[in-house]
């Protein structure tokens, strides 16, 4: 606890690693390499780095600055912080986005976390070796391994075959462990729980990744795998330079590169703004924010970019690159089965994914804890209990409606993508227009240990809103024009599970709106008492 009796950070390194831990997740090691390989190899890195400088870093700086601004005025929750920046009656209620995004993402993220832990345990216990033997026995002529045992193992965890299958599946024990672990650490508070865990888990994660990287880089023919990941290929029917520039003209690549930066840095999740609100008024935020972002980029580009796709390409070829889950839970176990010392590498890889997932999920409930404490005046124990019950309901919902992972995909689309865009656009508006670039940059500069370019204020006022709006419209257009069976808007009417999932999201939103309404009343009462006292 801080000197004012509020929860707070113990050390500067602790807050940097906690924010870094919140950002580093499965996307760094699975989604980024998959996208880079999909889009013309190295050509992808140009829109990727442009998005990092034009959108990612300015947004992260803006979120840290607004968080500390609100924290200095006694607010830790998004609704309170937004209200302190924008004197509009709507401001705290729009903060509901900062509640539902992390809380609902937690509900399905903890499930994925348990899959990572389960796979790590299977490598340790020898189960994966048995699956590997079965895959070798069932292999078709010429193929080293059959994919079927790995698919069976994964569907045993996810219950993808039928609704309710996951409840009695192998993953329940791991899910229970992850749920309890998260709540113990969250209950212990920022400095004693989250910060202490991240101080150990983040270096451990990087160590595991470096060990796996050494194993991958010492494989024979590794340059072929690296080439598949990093060679700028261009359009195949054109000369290299012409093809390279032609591939840069692909708008979908820019859209996906920007989305990757955006989700990877965890901007627009409502987490950074709450974390930074616990900093002291004159603490540096510019360097801390840059360090967290740099740590996330290191894990993504230098570790994720050198491990996953090069290893998959060497053993299984270009066709092995699939979606995030396919790459992580089907392709990579086959790759580890094929390589010498693969069981050790497999354990280390899934354990590092587990650590990355825990450090992310730990951060997701802090914004709601802050609101419950501020809005209802309850202590941490009560607010953690309320959230424990709520997230247990949500995770059980996702766990039960597991056929085709439909409930999980629906939550991920509406909350993990759609609402994140909305929240990020609102936060850009708050910094660029409500707080204003002048006050915003003054806030960012206070206590700063590096010089933040003046262009950041301009970018957050003019460039980022347009950039985000274009990407959001393109995203909505892409979804709306998709075939009916894969159109998430049409699925609300067509599919009962999607309809119920959206209904669940609405219920959680209403719950948080009621809490925010109560919080606004308390804040108004406090302000009236202070005015009367002075």
């Amino acid at each position, binding site marked *: 606890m801080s000197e004012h009796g509020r929860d707070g950070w113990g050390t*500067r*390194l602790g807050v*940097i690693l906690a924010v870094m831990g919140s950002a580093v997740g499965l996307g760094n090691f699975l989604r980024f390499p998959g996208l880079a390989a999909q889009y013309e*190899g*190295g050509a992808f*890195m140009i829109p990727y*780095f442009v998005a990092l400088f034009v959108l990612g870093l300015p947004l992260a700086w803006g979120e840290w600055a607004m968080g500390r601004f609100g924290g200095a005025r006694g607010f830790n929750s998004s609704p309170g912080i937004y209200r302190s920046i924008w004197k509009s009656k709507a401001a705290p209620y729009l903060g509901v986005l900062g509640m539902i995004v992390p809380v609902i993402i937690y509900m399905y993220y903890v499930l994925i976390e348990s899959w990572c832990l389960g796979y790590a345990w299977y490598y340790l216990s020898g189960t994966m070796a048995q699956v590997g033997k079965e895959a070798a026995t069932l292999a078709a002529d010429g193929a080293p391994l059959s994919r079927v045992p790995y698919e069976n193992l994964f569907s045993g965890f996810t219950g993808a075959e039928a609704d309710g299958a996951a409840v009695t599946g192998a993953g329940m024990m791991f899910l229970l462990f992850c749920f309890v672990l998260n709540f113990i650490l969250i209950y212990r508070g920022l400095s004693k729980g989250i910060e202490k865990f991240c101080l150990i888990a983040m270096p451990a994660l990087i160590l595991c990744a470096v060990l796996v990287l050494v194993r991958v880089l010492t494989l024979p023919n590794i*340059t*072929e795998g*690296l*080439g598949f*990941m*990093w*060679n*700028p290929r261009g359009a195949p029917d054109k000369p*290299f330079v012409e093809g390279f520039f032609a591939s840069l003209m692909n708008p979908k690549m820019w859209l996906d590169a920007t989305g990757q930066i955006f989700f990877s840095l965890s901007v627009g999740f409502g987490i950074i703004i709450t974390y930074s609100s616990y900093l*002291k*008024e*004159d*603490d*540096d935020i510019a*360097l*801390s924010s*840059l*360090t967290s972002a*740099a*740590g996330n*980029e*290191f894990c*993504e*580009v*230098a570790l994720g*970019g*050198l491990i996953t796709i090069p290893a998959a390409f060497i053993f299984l070829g270009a066709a092995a690159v699939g979606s995030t889950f396919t790459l992580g839970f089907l392709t990579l176990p086959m790759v580890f089965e094929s390589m010498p010392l693969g069981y050790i590498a497999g354990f280390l890889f899934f354990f590092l994914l587990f650590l990355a997932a825990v450090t992310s999920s730990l951060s997701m409930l802090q914004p709601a804890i802050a609101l419950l404490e501020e809005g209802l005046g309850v202590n941490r124990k009560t607010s953690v209990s309320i959230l424990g019950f709520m997230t247990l309901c949500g995770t059980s919902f996702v766990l039960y409606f597991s056929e085709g992972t439909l409930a999980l995909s629906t939550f991920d689309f509406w909350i993990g993508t759609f609402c994140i865009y909305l929240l990020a656009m609102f936060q850009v508006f708050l910094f660029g227009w409500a707080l204003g670039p002048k006050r915003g940059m003054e806030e960012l500069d206070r*206590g700063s*240990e*590096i010089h933040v370019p003046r262009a950041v204020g301009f970018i957050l006022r003019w460039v980022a809103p347009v950039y985000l709006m274009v990407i959001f419209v393109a995203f909505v257009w892409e979804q709306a024009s998709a075939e009916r069976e894969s159109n998430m808007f049409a699925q609300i009417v067509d599919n009962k599970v999607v309809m119920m999932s959206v209904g669940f999201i609405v219920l959680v939103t209403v719950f948080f709106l009621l809490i925010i309404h109560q919080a606004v009343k308390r804040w108004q009462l406090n302000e009236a008492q202070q005015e009367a006292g002075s």
Partner: protein
Amino acid sequence: MTIGGWFTMIVSVGFVTSLLSWCVFKVLTTPESTKHIHGELDIDTRDRD
């Protein structure tokens, strides 16, 4: 692996590694900013007596 591939990989990986190294160096070598708390004797009330 082509020269373009080596170039892209080295520049990308080198950039993020250098950025992180520089940031960690700055964090570890810059003393933490702490709010100066004034003791009673430090405060000049500008009273004449």
